[in-house]
């Protein structure tokens, strides 16, 4: 017999209440962003290697600025591409 718990929702019930974004640097106390670590910086760019805006990453202004400089530095050192397709 199907109990009450077995009933599945027709639409995703979590679709309305989206989780609040937060600045991971504030939350975990990361104070320095290394420009020599492209794997970490990859999280903040899109597939074409463009830096993602703050409204998507949820970073605070201070750390978004630092991310941007770190990405630009690693681009200069050819650790990250200026332009590509299918980075991820």
């Amino acid at each position, binding site marked *: 017999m199907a109990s009450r718990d077995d009933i599945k929702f027709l639409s995703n019930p979590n679709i309305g209440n989206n989780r609040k974004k937060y600045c*991971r640097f504030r939350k975990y106390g990361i*104070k*320095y962003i*290394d420009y*020599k670590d492209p794997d*970490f910086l990859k999280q903040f760019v899109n597939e074409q290697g463009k830096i993602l805006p703050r409204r998507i990453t949820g970073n605070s202004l201070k750390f978004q600025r630092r991310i941007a400089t770190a990405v630009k530095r690693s681009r*200069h*050192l*050819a650790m*990250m591409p200026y332009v590509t397709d299918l980075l991820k």
Partner: protein
Amino acid sequence: MRQYEVTFIVDPVLSGDEVKSTVNTYKKLLEDAGCTIVNLDEMGLRQLAYPINRRNTGVYFCIEFQPTSGEAIDSMELSFRRDERIMRFLTVKLDKYGIKYNDDKRNGRIGSSKKEEVKKEEVKSAKTEKAAPKKEAPKKEETSKKEEAPVAVEENNTPVEKADVTPTDNEGDKA
């Protein structure tokens, strides 16, 4: 004293000894200019994200140093520009967090910033896990007691039912 960090890419076409000698010339150049070298990190041969001078790979090096005057950096950068063996370079002034980060990295306290994050998340989840069982434990006891009572009743009933059921099944099979 201010601390700087210079990262540069050496041409991979050079042999291992030639690469070492180029790095040593810059190390000496900095030392002669009165800098104290904190660390020399060889990051090794890496794939470039885009071709530079028709090369797809490069040997990365990173020198951390404390100069006595800014002129040392100027002379170093000038010789980098003149040198054909150097493909790219970048000099950065480290803030106090940068110094600490590099120090921690050298001593193996962090593999990468990614791992640091994961560790912290793990610690957090561990804390919540520890807190959670304490809350759950008393509830479980209550529920188990409740469950025990009906089960006991059922156990009394079941043998009778089974006795009733089994003969009928056998009869069905025979038929």
